[in-house]
């Protein structure tokens, strides 16, 4: 894992921006997906009603979550599913490991699950001598490159096809210089087919779980979740407790929204409903809390638990598009990741709520109407109050507070500022001043508005 906890989002974004053509390419690729999302959404006249319905269903579910969890557990068990509960990432990893141990499994195939990224399951299992192969093409690519995914829907969106060609040449034996997506995908297909056919255990994520029926739904385009689950003897599914919805009919609402928001497709190729284990085999489901119940108690931030992981907020975000997913150093990057991560570790992720222009585009495209930009703004206040803010920012804010709270200092500093900028501009226009980065300092005015007003006001006013 390439994690550099000493660098914050701004520093990593700065590094990402060193290669301008690449940033432009990244930016345009993601905007292209945002445009596809728009075309899909605009084709549905009732889109806004769908979003509102989805939002209300999700919020209702959160308001009754303990009952729905108990109901789901009972129904899933009645269907023959073994249900496990994990309070945190560590317990989740232990549960998965113990299931594998019981079956003497040392190799597992895994389809996309951001929860297992959040829990660092692969690292944990590898430390315990279990090999994990990610089967989603994008995830397999970043796994071979020894990188985390940079996007929850498009894990290797930061890589160019030539780089992927190099990775395949090194690990899968393709010819050097081959970068045709068709050939690379075919190579991965052959390599992973062998994996699917030989693994005894498969792990999948969960997109939705239905309380009234005890079933869960997994959505993929590649068919990799199903290939893994149906060929293995043991299927383990990991889900965050917020993935519940009350009724089967609610799936109609969410499956219409999910993929249109994610990639602009009308639906994923496969929407698989797992209700019972395959006859004669085991199906395990791990319900994971890992901080979600804490977030549920934060009135300002509980709304973030409505998220269905479509990634639309990332594709539209001007900061994400120009800083790349790795700059967030969190399993879920982008705007939604920036309101989820501080709940998990406020100190470590204190930089993320500041990685935003607060333009609100994320909230506008969110299919379940999470007020993402408001929450980013509110997190900033919490982080400063708790003392986790960047000291440079705190000093600046304190200085500003000093200047703005007294008319005398305000007038005096205005004068001093204008004099400095006019007489010795290099003292402000240099790299020591963070405001100067990417900005020209303005031409200093001759006088302040206050000075002009005293000179020009007419006596009777």
């Amino acid at each position, binding site marked *: 894992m390439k994690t550099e906890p000493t660098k914050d989002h701004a520093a990593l974004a700065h590094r990402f921006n060193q290669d301008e053509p690449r940033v432009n390419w990244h930016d345009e690729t993601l905007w292209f997906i945002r445009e596809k999302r728009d075309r899909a959404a605009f084709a549905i006249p009732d889109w806004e009603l769908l979003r509102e319905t989805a939002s209300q269903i999700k919020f209702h579910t959160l308001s009754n979550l303990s009952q729905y969890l108990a109901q789901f557990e009972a129904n899933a068990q009645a269907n023959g599913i073994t249900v496990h509960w994990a*309070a945190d990432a560590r317990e989740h990893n232990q549960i998965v490991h113990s299931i594998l141990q019981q079956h003497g499994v040392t190799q597992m195939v895994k389809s996309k699950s951001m929860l297992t990224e959040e829990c660092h399951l692969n690292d944990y299992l590898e430390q315990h001598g279990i090999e994990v192969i990610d089967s989603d093409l994008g995830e397999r690519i970043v796994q071979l490159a020894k990188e985390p995914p940079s996007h929850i829907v498009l894990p290797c969106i930061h890589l160019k096809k030539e780089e992927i060609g190099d990775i395949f040449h090194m690990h899968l034996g393709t010819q050097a210089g081959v970068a045709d997506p068709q050939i690379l995908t075919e190579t991965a297909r052959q390599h992973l087919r062998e994996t699917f056919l030989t693994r005894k255990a498969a792990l999948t994520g969960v997109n939705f779980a239905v309380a009234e029926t005890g079933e869960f739904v997994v959505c993929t385009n590649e068919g990799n979740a199903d290939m893994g689950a149906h060929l293995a003897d043991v299927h383990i599914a990991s889900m965050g407790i917020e993935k519940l919805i009350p009724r089967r009919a609610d799936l109609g609402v969410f499956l219409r929204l999910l993929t249109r928001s994610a990639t602009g497709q009308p639906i994923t190729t496969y929407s698989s409903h797992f209700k019972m284990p395959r006859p004669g085999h085991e199906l395990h489901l791990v319900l994971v809390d890992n901080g979600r119940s804490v977030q*549920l108690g934060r009135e300002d931030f509980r709304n973030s638990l409505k998220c269905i992981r479509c990634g639309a907020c990332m594709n539209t975000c001007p900061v994400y598009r120009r800083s790349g997913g790795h700059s967030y150093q969190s399993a879920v990057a982008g705007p939604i990741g920036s309101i989820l991560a501080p709940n998990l570790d406020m100190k470590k992720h204190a930089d993320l709520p500041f990685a935003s222009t607060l333009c609100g585009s994320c909230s506008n495209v969110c299919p379940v109407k999470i007020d993402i930009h408001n929450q980013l703004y509110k997190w900033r206040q919490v982080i400063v109050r708790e003392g986790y803010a960047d000291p440079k920012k705190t000093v600046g804010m304190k200085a500003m507070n000093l200047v703005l709270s007294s008319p005398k200092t305000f007038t005096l500093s205005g004068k001093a500022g204008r004099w400095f900028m006019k007489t010795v501009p290099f003292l402000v226009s240099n790299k020591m001043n963070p405001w100067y980065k990417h900005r020209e300092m303005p031409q200093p005015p001759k006088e302040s508005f206050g000075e002009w007003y005293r000179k020009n006001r007419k006596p009777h006013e």
Partner: protein
Amino acid sequence: MSSRDQILTAVAQNQPPLTPLPEVPTFQLEAPDLVEKFSQVAVGIGSRVFRVKGYEEVQEILFHDFKANHRIISRVPELSSFADATLLEDRNRHQLANVDLAIVEAHFGVAENGACWVTEEVLGLRVVPFICQHLAILLPKDRLVPLMHDAYASIGSAEYGYGVFIAGPSKTADIEQSLVLGAHGPRTLTVFLMGQ
């Protein structure tokens, strides 16, 4: 206290006051012709769609691409002259890796997204529509519903061990957003809309 009880207690303590569960509103599809809409969307997501009168036409069309030496499986009795159903048992599931074509019947199709609903019961084995190189779905054309809401109304409280909406061939755009058909599952999907 077990993790289960610990989680349920924490959730119960922290969940906000109960808000109402909304009824799902009635949504309408603007396109009046379901066959037309389904065909248009299905082709748009990479499926081939044929309107056929009966099984003979299905065979005729499939035989353009598949010959007697291809491995073809199906549980549809009308296709038993050229499609095999004998290996559809769980212990044989890995042996399906070299199936060229699988033909399955769908319960119904959804016009708005070109998806077909199939369950374990009609598949025989869950892995069938994924492991085959090519997939064909038979769908009576009077079993099209407009929207996903209608789809779930049709499913109702049906019992199944496993069910899946299939919309198009397996695909990926993970490499620079270039669409490639045939990721891990079938490289092509052919839908036969059956009926006079």
